[in-house]
């Protein structure tokens, strides 16, 4: 596609449930990033993929968070046993190379009630 596509755009879930967020990057972009943006806060880095591998997972807030990328394309971010503090906008970005400008998707707004 022409841009980075994220789905769903909005997700309301009950505390304790698992959620999956999807990111479809720009075709040919090898680098993919997940960030989290909470109200009034800056963008918090979560994880980076180069191809299918994630060299550094230390940005993930807890072991409830996991991410994978298959075929060097689509990525999913999974949050298990969601908590209210997980409520935020989750943004995905892709880039041609790791030091090129990122293209962001519109994000998934997650609300945990």
């Amino acid at each position, binding site marked *: 596609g022409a841009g980075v596509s994220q789905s769903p755009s909005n997700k309301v879930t009950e505390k304790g449930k698992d959620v999956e967020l999807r990111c479809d990057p720009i075709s040919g972009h090898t680098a993919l990033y997940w*960030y989290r943006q909470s109200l009034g806060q*800056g963008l918090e880095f979560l994880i980076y993929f*180069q191809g299918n591998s994630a060299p550094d997972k230390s940005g993930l807030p807890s072991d409830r968070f996991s991410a994978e990328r298959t075929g060097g394309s689509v990525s999913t971010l999974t949050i298990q046993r969601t908590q209210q503090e997980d409520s935020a906008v989750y943004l995905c970005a892709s880039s041609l190379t*790791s030091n090129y400008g990122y293209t*962001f998707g*519109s994000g998934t707004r997650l609300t945990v009630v």
Partner: protein
Amino acid sequence: EDQVTQSPEALRLQEGESSSLNCSYTVSGLRGLFWYRQDPGKGPEFLFTLYSAGEEKEKERLKATLTKKESFLHITAPKPEDSATYLCAVQEGGRDDKIIFGKGTRLHILP
């Protein structure tokens, strides 16, 4: 300590009133400094990348400059449609994994 600090947090200008936004950084060996624009409910939109001190880039009413410790985003004769949050981000030398964002400056241009 924040590695990227933006000031002011918020700025209100009259249409046509020029000003500058500041981004100071403390990473070692800057690999690149990025400016983004973010509108409400949308993801950040890439504006500029600067790589070395003294570099300048322009796009319409915006001009970004870079020194060894900070970057400025100059906005000349702004229009209401320039209202947005402007985000600065840096990539550290030797790091491939991420860019570090500041908290942004919320710019509001009054007609």
